[in-house]
C-alpha cells in the first residue's frame, strides 16, 4: 500500500492500518469490536487485563492492545478459543471481587458489567476466597473508593501519573494481595489527591466513584449535555449529566475541548451552585431600606427611569457599568453596546484586571 500503510486480515476481511498501530487500534479504526478493560486511549498501554487477546496467524494468542500490526497478518478477534479465554478471565475477575451490581454506583455504566453481559457469564458458584480490600467512602469530599470492585486495571494509576501528573495512586502489595494505595497507604482524603476526578472518570467499574453531588440518578436515566467550564480561562469542555428531575448529577471532561477530557476539582465539582437555594429567583427592589421581590416590569421600569433621569440631568458619563468576565460574548457585547449606543458613554469596564 505504501505511505506507511499495512494490509492485514481481521476476521477474514482485508483491512488497512497504519504502521506502528496496534491490532486493537487497527480493528477499532475499521469498526471491529475487541473488548478492553485496562486499555484506555489517553494513557500508556498496560496489557494487563488480557481481555483483548486475539489469535494471530491461527496460532499465537496475543493482546491486541499491545501487539503491532504487520503486513499480511491474519487476525481472529473472537473464535471459540478466544471467547473461552475471555470468559475465563471474566470469571476470574468476578470471583476475585465483590461485583454486585445492585449496590454499585457504576451499575449501567460499567465496562466489566457490559462484558459479562456480552459473554453471558453466570455466577460460578465457586468457593474461591475473596480478598477483602479497602472501602473508603468518607475520607474524601470528592471521591469514593471501594476496592472490592476494583479489577486492578491500573487506569487510575496511569490517569494520575500521566494526565493529572500527581502520582497519588500506585499499586501496593503483590500477586493476589495487590491493591491500590494512595501516597503511602493514606486514606484518599488524607492523601495529596487534588480531587480532579480523572481517575474516577476513567475507572471501568464502580471501584472509584464520585461523591454524590445532587440527587442520584442511574446511568440510563441521565441526560448528557456539553458546555464550557465557568471558572478559569482554560475553557475546559464539560459533559454535564442531569437526571430525570433536571438535577445536575455529575460532570465529566469532554474530549473535544482544549482539556482533552481532563478537569480540575472546580470543573469537576463546582457546578451545584447553579441549583443552590441561594439562587435569586425574582427581581428585587429596595423599599424602605429592604430588598423586596418585584415584577420584571416594575424592576426594569425603575432602572430605565433612573438611568434616563441621570442621563438627562447629570449627563451620560454619570452612569457607569461593570461588565462580566463570567458572562458570554453576546452578553458583554450587548452591555457595552447598551452603554455606548443607549446611554451614550464609554463607562464600561470589567474585571479583566482583578
Amino acid at each position, binding site marked *: 500500500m505504501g505511505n506507511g500503510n499495512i494490509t492485514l486480515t481481521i476476521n477474514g476481511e482485508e483491512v488497512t492500518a497504519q504502521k506502528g498501530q496496534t491490532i486493537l487500534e487497527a480493528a477499532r479504526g475499521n469498526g471491529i469490536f475487541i473488548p478492553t478493560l485496562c486499555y484506555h486511549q489517553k494513557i500508556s*498501554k*498496560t*496489557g*494487563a*487485563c*488480557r*481481555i483483548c*487477546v486475539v489469535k494471530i496467524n491461527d496460532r499465537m*494468542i496475543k*493482546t491486541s492492545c*499491545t*501487539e*503491532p500490526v504487520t503486513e499480511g497478518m491474519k487476525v481472529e478477534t473472537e473464535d471459540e*478459543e478466544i471467547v*473461552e*479465554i475471555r470468559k*475465563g*478471565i471474566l470469571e*476470574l*475477575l468476578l*470471583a*476475585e471481587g465483590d461485583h454486585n451490581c445492585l449496590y454499585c454506583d457504576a451499575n449501567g455504566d460499567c465496562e466489566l458489567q457490559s462484558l459479562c453481559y456480552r459473554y453471558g457469564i453466570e455466577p460460578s458458584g465457586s468457593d*474461591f*476466597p475473596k480478598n477483602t480490600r479497602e472501602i473508603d467512602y468518607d475520607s474524601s469530599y470528592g471521591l469514593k473508593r471501594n476496592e472490592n470492585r476494583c*479489577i*486492578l486495571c*491500573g487506569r487510575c494509576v496511569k490517569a494520575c*501519573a500521566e494526565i493529572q501528573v*500527581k*502520582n*497519588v*495512586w*500506585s*499499586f*501496593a*502489595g*503483590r*500477586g*493476589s*494481595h*495487590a491493591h491500590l*494505595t*494512595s*501516597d*503511602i*497507604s493514606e486514606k484518599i482524603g488524607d492523601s*495529596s489527591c487534588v480531587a480532579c476526578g480523572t481517575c474516577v472518570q476513567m475507572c471501568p467499574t464502580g471501584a472509584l466513584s464520585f461523591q454524590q453531588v445532587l440527587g442520584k440518578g442511574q446511568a440510563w436515566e441521565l441526560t448528557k449535555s456539553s458546555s464550557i467550564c465557568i471558572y478559569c480561562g482554560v475553557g475546559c469542555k464539560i459533559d454535564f449529566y442531569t437526571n430525570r428531575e433536571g438535577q445536575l448529577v455529575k460532570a465529566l471532561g469532554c474530549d473535544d475541548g482544549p482539556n482533552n477530557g481532563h478537569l480540575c476539582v472546580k470543573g469537576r465539582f463546582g457546578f451545584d451552585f447553579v441549583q443552590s437555594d441561594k439562587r435569586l429567583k425574582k427581581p428585587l427592589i429596595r423599599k424602605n431600606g429592604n430588598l423586596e421581590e418585584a415584577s420584571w416590569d416594575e424592576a426594569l421600569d425603575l432602572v430605565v427611569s433612573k438611568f434616563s433621569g441621570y442621563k438627562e440631568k447629570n449627563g451620560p458619563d454619570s452612569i457607569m457599568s461593570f461588565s462580566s468576565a463570567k458572562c458570554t460574548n453576546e452578553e458583554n457585547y450587548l452591555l457595552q453596546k447598551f452603554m455606548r449606543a443607549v446611554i451614550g458613554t464609554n463607562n464600561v469596564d470589567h474585571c479583566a484586571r482583578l
Partner: protein
Amino acid sequence: MILVNDIQNVVDKWGNDSENLMLIMRELETKSGKNQVDKDTLQTLAAVMNIPESTVSGFVDFYTMFKKHPRAKFLIRVSKSGPDHIMGARDVFDFIEEYLGIKPGETTADGVFHLEACECLGVSSVAPAMMINYDIHGNLNRESLKKIFDAYRKKEPSFKSDCGPETYADACIIDNGKQTKRLLAAIGTVKAESIDSYVQNGGYAGLKKTLKECKPEDVITVVKDSGLRGRGGAGFPAGMKWSFVTKGDMQKYVICNADEGEPGTFKDRILMEGNPHAVIEGMAICGYAIDASIGYIYVRGEFRKSIELLQNAIDQARAKGMLGRNILGSGFDFDLFIKEGGGAYVCGEETSLINSMEGERGYPRFKPPFPGGAGFKNLPSNVNNVETFASVPMIMERGADWYKEIGPTNCSGTKLYCLSGKMKNTGLIEMPMGTTLREIINDFGGGMKGGKKFKFAHVGGSAGGILGEDLMDLPLDIDQTTKAGVTLGSGVVLVADEDTCAVDYLLQIMSFFEHESCGQCVPCRVGTSQLHHILKKFANRTAKKEDLDVLIKKATLMQKASLCALGQSPILPIRTMLKYFKDEFIRHCDPGYSCPECDRSLKRYYSGAGH
C-alpha cells in the same frame, strides 16, 4: 526513626535517581536496626528524592525483603520452597517455635529475632536453609540451629554477609572426577577474591583475544556458531539475541540476570562466588559485540556474598584496566555496576528485572518491544543469564568448534545441573547437555538417600515438570525435554522419594506461585490464587474429583493468557504431576483418607492468624 540528614546522606551516596531505590532502601532498612523501612522514613525519602510517595510505597510493598513494620534486630527467613520442603523446612519451623517461641510473622519477646517464611535461598544442595539478615545457613538441624541462634544472640547486625561454610562455592560442588568441567574448572582453583589468580589461570584471555582479533560482528558470529543457548531457562540462542540488539548511536546496555530465584537453582550463585571474573569477562565481550559501554549485574538481594565478591572483582577489574575506558588499549569502553533485587521471583523475567533495575515494581512488560529494542531506560539492552555470560570467554578463546565438541548439535556445550532433594549427594555438577536423570542420580547423587524409593524428580525448578521412572533416560537438554512435555529450565534436578506426598508437594509449588505472582495480569493474579486454593482443598481432603478438571482448566487459561512466563508455568507441574499421581489426588478427595504429610503442612502453614 531515621533522621532526615541520614536519609539525605544515603541518597547522596547512591545517587538521587529512582534507579537507585533498591540500594537506598536496603541501606535504610539496615540502618533502622529493626529490619524496617517505616512510613516516616519513606515520606522523607520521597521528599528528599522528589519522587511521589506512592512510588516509594508501591516499590517497598512489592519486594518481600522489605517491610514497613518493625521486625527485629535479626530477621530469620526460612525457606519453604520445594527443595527445603522436601528436606525438612517444617522441622526448622517446628524447632524455631520450640526454641525461640515464634511463628512466622512473630518477634521474640526480647526483640532479637523475627521469623518469616521465604522462598528458595539459592542453596538447595544444603536444604533446609535459612537466612539471618544477610547470612545464609544450610543443612539445618536441631543442633545446628541451636548453635546458630545462640551465636547470633551475641552478635551485632552487619551489612557484610557471614554465611555458613556449607554454602561456599567449592563446598557445593559434587567432586567425583566424573564431570566434564569447563565452567567449574576454575572453582576451587581460582581464588574468587583475586584477579591475579584468575589471570594466572588464563582469565581475560578471551577478552584480550576478542578485542585484538575480532570486530564486534565477528563476536556475534562466533557466539552464534558455538550454538550457545541461554542458560536461564528459555534456551534462546545467545548469538541470535545479541544480533537483535538495535544498532545506532544510542547508549546500549549489557544486563546479567543474576536473580537466581527458581527454587532448586544455585548454579549462578556458585559461578559468582567461585569465579566472578568469568561473568565480568563474558559481559565485557558482549558489550563489545553489541556496542554497549555499560553493564549491570542484577543480583538477588539474598545473595549478599555474591554481591560482595562481584563488587570486589569489579573493583579489581577496573583497577587492572579490564573495565573502564579504553580497555587494553582497544578503544573499547565498558564499565559494570551491580543492581540488587529485593525478593521477587518474577524479577528473573527479563523485563521485570529491567523494571526493577529502574526502581519500579517488578512488573513484567509486554513484548514487543523486546529489551533488545527498548530495555533499560527504554534503550537497547541485552539480557543473559550468569551461566551464559560465564560461557562466553572460553568460546571466544577456544573457538566455536571447540565449544560444540560437547553436547548435542542444537544444544551444544555443558550444562550445570543443580542437584537437591533425597539423594545421597547433592550439589552442583557440570555435564554435557543431555545427561540423563539416571546418570545424575546414580553417578553423582550416589543413589537415593537412606535407600528409599524414588518417587519423582522435579526438573527445571518450580516452573518445571515432574519426571517419573519412565523418563529416567531422557536426555536432559533443551530440546529433548521440551519434546517430552517437560523442560530443562535452569537445570534444577530435585529428587523426591516415597515419603513425599504428591498433593502436599504440589501445594507448596502452588503456594509459591501465588506468593510470587506480581499481580499485574488477571489470569496469573487470580489464577495462582485459585490454583493454590484448589490444592488446599485436596490437602485437607475437601476437594472433589471434578476439581482436578478445574485445576487443569484454570492453569490452561493461565498458560494461554498470562502476560509472562510465571503465569504460563503452573500448568506444567500440574499436568505432569497428575500424569503420575492422579490416583493419589483422587484418594485425597476422601475426607477419611489419612495423609500425615498434608496434615503437617496444613498445621504449619495454614492455621492460626491470617489463615
